[in-house]
């Protein structure tokens, strides 16, 4: 069975500080990995995804995530957060014909 674990339900960070949102998955087969972001009162939007190739993937707004097969992780990082990054972040893994989402991590940006 496949599952996704987001270890932190909430992460408070000061503005302009770095942040890491953790994601671990369990799967016995190859996977595709995603990070989706949900801004307040909106639907989810794709932030970045890993399908194959380079294990480091980047988004257009400064986030990056690294696929680590040995540690079965896909942590999301940003070197300097902005107030506009306040949102819920969902890690997801897709195997077979479905996507399984983690329970989300709420990122609080403190002024």
């Amino acid at each position: 069975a496949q599952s996704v674990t987001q270890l932190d339900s909430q992460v408070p960070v000061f503005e302009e500080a770095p942040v890491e949102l953790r994601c671990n998955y369990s799967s016995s087969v190859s996977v595709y990995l995603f990070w989706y972001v949900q801004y307040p009162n909106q639907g989810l939007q794709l932030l970045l995804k890993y399908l194959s190739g380079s294990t480091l993937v980047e988004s257009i707004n400064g986030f990056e995530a690294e696929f680590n097969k040995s540690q079965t992780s896909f942590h999301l990082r940003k070197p300097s957060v902005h107030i506009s990054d306040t949102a819920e972040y969902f890690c997801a893994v897709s195997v077979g014909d479905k996507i399984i989402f983690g329970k989300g991590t709420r990122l609080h940006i403190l002024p």
Partner: protein
Amino acid sequence: DTAVSQTPKYLVTQMGNDKSIKCEQNLGHDTMYWYKQDSKKFLKIMFSYNNKELIINETVPNRFSPKSPDKAHLNLHINSLELGDSAVYFCASSQEMGVQETQYFGPGTRLLVL
């Protein structure tokens, strides 16, 4: 223009009623989905359709019946609503069927059953 739209945005109703949620996408995608997000933000797939054909049907009570009149629409009808049906329901679409595809989500329909 909104890529994936849902109506209504909010729905408050009594237990036992029947209600429908509509979803439309103007992206020309072949595949559409319904997800349920519970009060703890846990997001779980309910159904997926590809070219109007049902592909995924998770263990959802048969009170929930999706209908896809055409590729651009996937509606969700719920019979005999129960308190536990209260949640946010998201519609999504992707260009093709395939787990590597990016999914585009609608804004959600917040359903409250009293």
